[in-house]
């Protein structure tokens, strides 16, 4: 039961990108198209699951002082395997697009973070579930970002053109002119910034809704309610649930 909870809780509530704010570099770099995003998420998830299981199995034999070095060696081993496998399986175009970001999974803070925060304290089965859950969360985040960037930035989805190509000078539907900048570096920052905003906005709304439901249950109904704006929880200076860890 709790194992299943590890799996179902992680993708949204502990989303690695939007909640934990980890693994930003590949998130921004490879999300030019949905295909690249899925390939990156698959590679990272494979490494994450394998590393989580192995680290959880050997967690009792790792001396505390050199644990980070041990994790890095384990992760590097799996990254090399995934690198070779990607060269064999994935199409050339995807390998070109992901480029140095496949070997860079080795310094991806999601994987090291899960090794340190979860796999070193839990059994292999729970670690497997944690790896899968976080991997699905990473996949969701990458797909969300790359969907916006590919559809608006290139007018394609999974490589297929969505809008009609002009034949001569007449098209039935006015032709869509892609916002090329979304496919380039600035677009990545701006799209992920706006999606972060959307995520926070939805989170704020849910919190406010929960508070409205919870208020009548409080015994001091007769007292004056403090104005919602003055409660410390609603001040804009409230610390964000997450800030990137260097």
């Amino acid at each position, binding site marked *: 039961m709790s194992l299943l909870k590890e799996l179902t809780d992680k993708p949204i509530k502990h989303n690695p990108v939007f909640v934990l*704010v*980890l693994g*930003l*570099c*590949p998130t*921004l*770099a490879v999300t030019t198209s949905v295909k690249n995003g899925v390939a990156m998420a698959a590679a990272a998830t494979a490494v994450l699951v394998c590393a989580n299981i192995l680290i959880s199995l050997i967690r009792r034999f790792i001396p505390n002082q050199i644990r*980070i*070095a041990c994790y*890095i*060696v384990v992760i*590097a*081993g799996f*990254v*090399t395997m995934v*690198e*070779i496998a990607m*060269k064999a399986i994935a199409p050339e175009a995807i390998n070109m697009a992901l480029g*140095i970001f496949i*070997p*860079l999974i*080795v*310094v*991806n*803070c999601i994987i*090291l973070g899960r090794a340190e925060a979860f796999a070193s304290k839990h059994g292999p089965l729970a670690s497997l579930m944690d790896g899968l859950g976080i991997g699905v969360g990473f996949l969701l985040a990458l797909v969300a970002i790359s969907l916006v960037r590919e559809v608006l930035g290139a007018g394609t989805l999974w490589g297929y053109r969505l809008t009609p190509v002009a034949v001569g000078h007449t098209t039935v539907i006015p032709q869509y002119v892609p916002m090329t*900048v979304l496919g*380039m*570096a*600035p*677009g*990545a*920052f*701006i799209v*992920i*910034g*706006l999606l*972060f*905003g*959307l995520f*926070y*906005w939805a989170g*704020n709304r849910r919190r406010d809704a929960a508070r409205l439901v919870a208020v009548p249950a409080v015994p001091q109904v007769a007292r004056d309610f403090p104005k919602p704006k003055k409660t410390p929880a609603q001040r*804009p200076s409230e610390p*964000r649930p997450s*800030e*990137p*860890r*260097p």
Partner: protein
Amino acid sequence: MEVGYLELAVGSILISNVVLAKFLGLCPFFGVSRRTSDAVGMGLAVIFVMSIASAATALIYRHLLLPTNLEHTNLLGVLGLPVPEGGYVLILKTISFILVIAGLVQFVEMVLKKSAPALYRALGIYLPLITTNCAVMGMALLNTEAWRDPANGLPVHLATVNGFCGGVGFLLAMLLMSGIRQRLAERRVPKALQGLPIAFISAGLMALAFMGFTKLFGIAV
């Protein structure tokens, strides 16, 4: 044709900035850019480590991993040890690079602690964070394939310069970002965009500005 120093400098600092064009080192870029003093400390530490790491990894790449050819010799081959057809690049590149960088950071930390305590106090807290900073590892990987010669990678002296310039580009981006974030902290920002989202959007506008450097002096990266 060999790449010139100035070409490398302009290319790595302005045209393909590590942070704003290559998306490397984003965690410290957003995590440590609240105060200018922190941003400068982190930037200097990255310059320092990135130069040394670029030199060390270029040395390993050209003289241990790649097979012998006209431009460089494989030291293992000289010693009479077997070197496979494509060298050891495919199997050992990632592992050897990360181990060298991790070891190097530890070593630099220990040396600084003993020999330059003042510098250690300034950079010390940032050094452990740099091991898992993808900018350093990313620069080491880029040195092996960038600049027109994917088969050989940059020679050691050019790789060192490239690492240094990449670090300078990182420092520049950090400085600009910390200035922007200090201004942002005093402004009214819509509630949902406070904190990280607005920082990302500002970084996007900065990246847009840096795109103006594309093809500067005719340098293609």
